[in-house]
């Protein structure tokens, strides 16, 4: 275990200058490309693009490759990405959902170690230390939020309470019983938990020892962060990650809370105009595109995240040159996040079609009911959906609710509405109405 004195978990890497970072990136990129040449997918990918990995001599040379996205991952057997024999793989993570082929990321033991190390670096940067009690209120399992920081906090030496998501009263009991000082939580749940504290007659400022919250997995406003800090009496730090880039730990806020540092020793970040795929100037909003630099099992080159944000160059007051990004300002596709879970309207549409047998007009409404997030799916009742009996409607409602829960892992409120009462959808975006002001909606 490392010493407790410094401000930096890995000062050699964290304090590299911009110039040094670029040098390290080029070296690691070359290694990554050599590695990719062993993967059946990448051999084909390079050939089709007329790209010679050996000839790359600058970071800019990477732009000769086309960007890839979720569809690229879905278009082939995930094993084809591997640059190592299958037996080297020790873990997989996967996106939720059962419609279409799941997107899978395979990790070698070294990949897990590298990811863990990045996570520990993030936690340490915000002030988490060995003496802390870390309650991990993220979902464990295929979702990367739970396991990623679980191991990171252990690596750092903190005591981990692997409480997982949900079961609010138990979360509060654990916090009080074991003196939790740090929580890893999605912001909407942290907000909701305030109501539970209040129902239990407790004040988190007085009745817990919380001092740090790591909040991520969904967009939220600065105003919400400040409200959480105020209500809990702690400092809340923004987290960014996605399962395709291993999970949390891609970018994180330092104590100055002025943008999230992207760990540029581990990722090359590009910010592109989502339409032209040309780079946007510093400080302007664009789509984040990442290349992994030290993932060996399944490297990804120029992966389009669909997340929109701005990047800020220059040295931060904390001393780090690793470029910062703003909070995520939106998406270049129609994905939305509810209760920390990524959902595509197409998933909802497929479930509706499957559970009803016929298509009908629908609308997804995201709203706050007090401090609780709610996803409401409005479905128009057409003659084909029932034969005149109210019980058929009740069972339809139940069936849709259960099927949606199975598919997207969030339980929605299914509302039956009259035919013609929802706006006709001309584009995909119209299907989703987001009224959650604090979570980046409206």
């Amino acid at each position: 275990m490392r010493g407790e004195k410094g401000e930096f978990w890995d000062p050699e890497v964290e304090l590299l200058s911009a110039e040094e970072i670029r040098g390290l990136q080029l070296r690691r990129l070359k290694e990554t490309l050599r590695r990719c040449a062993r993967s059946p997918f990448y051999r084909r990918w390079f050939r089709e693009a007329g790209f010679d990995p050996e000839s790359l001599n600058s970071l800019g040379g990477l732009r000769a490759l086309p960007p890839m996205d979720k569809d690229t991952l879905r278009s082939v057997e995930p094993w084809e990405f591997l640059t190592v024999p299958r037996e080297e793989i020790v873990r997989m993570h996967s996106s939720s959902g059962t419609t279409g082929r799941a997107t899978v990321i395979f990790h070698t033991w070294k990949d897990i170690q590298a990811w863990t190390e990045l996570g520990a670096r993030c936690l340490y940067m915000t002030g988490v230390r060995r003496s802390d009690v870390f309650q991990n209120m993220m979902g464990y399992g295929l979702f990367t939020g739970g396991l990623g920081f679980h191991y990171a906090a252990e690596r750092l030496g903190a005591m981990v309470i692997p409480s997982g998501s949900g079961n609010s009263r138990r979360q509060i009991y654990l916090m009080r019983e074991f003196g939790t000082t740090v929580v890893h939580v999605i912001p909407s749940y942290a907000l909701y938990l305030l109501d539970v504290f209040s129902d239990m007659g407790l004040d988190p400022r007085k009745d817990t020892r919380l001092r740090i919250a790591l909040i991520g997995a969904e967009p939220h406003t600065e105003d919400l962060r400040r409200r959480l800090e105020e209500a809990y009496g702690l400092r809340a730090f923004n987290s960014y990650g996605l399962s395709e880039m291993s999970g949390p730990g891609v970018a994180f806020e330092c104590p100055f809370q002025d943008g999230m540092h992207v760990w540029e020793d581990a990722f090359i970040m590009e910010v592109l105009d989502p339409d032209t795929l040309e780079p946007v100037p510093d400080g302007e909003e664009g789509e984040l595109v990442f290349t992994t630099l030290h993932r060996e099992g399944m490297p990804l080159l120029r992966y389009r995240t669909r997340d929109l944000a701005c990047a800020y160059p220059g040295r931060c007051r904390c001393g780090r040159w690793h470029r910062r990004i703003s909070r995520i300002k939106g998406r270049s596709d129609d994905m939305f996040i509810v209760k920390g879970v990524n959902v595509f309207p197409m998933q909802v549409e497929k479930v509706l079609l499957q559970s009803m047998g016929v298509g009908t007009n629908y609308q997804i409404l995201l709203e706050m009911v007090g401090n609780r997030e709610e996803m409401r799916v409005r479905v128009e009742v057409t003659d084909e959906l029932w034969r005149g009996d109210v019980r058929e409607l009740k069972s339809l409602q139940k069936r849709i609710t259960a099927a949606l829960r199975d598919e997207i892992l969030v339980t929605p409120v299914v509302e039956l509405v009259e035919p013609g009462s929802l706006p006709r959808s001309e584009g995909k975006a119209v299907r989703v109405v987001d009224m959650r002001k604090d979570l980046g909606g409206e």
Partner: protein
Amino acid sequence: MAHQVNVFLADRPGRLERLTGALADKGINIRAITIAGSEGYGVAKLLVDRPEDAHSVLHEEGFSAHLKEVLAVLMEDRPGGLHAVCAALGEKGINIEDAYGFVVKDRETAVLVMEVEKIPEAEDVLRGAGFHILEDHELYGL
């Protein structure tokens, strides 16, 4: 076979008004109405003098509506009148899924309108017990 019209209604102000307005415009008379509410919506059941017209008018107005077969039986408007009908069906194990009644002539006759699973069987049972099942024209012309 007698029919009523079952209509899906959102639980919002003004919906029932639009429904009754549409029927009134076409001169359709409502003999009886019940509304079964659930969370956020309801189903209105309408016994009218011209069920097929009502059904198509409501469709034109954009409602989701179905013609539903019902059994209408004449009862005596006196204590025990309804009980006699129920007892006859219960004895034969016939379940009434939904029902409503209305008085036709005070202290003399009333009508019970029922949704039952096996209508022909229920009809036989009731006829066998001496009840009068209303024909379409009798029911709509009340």
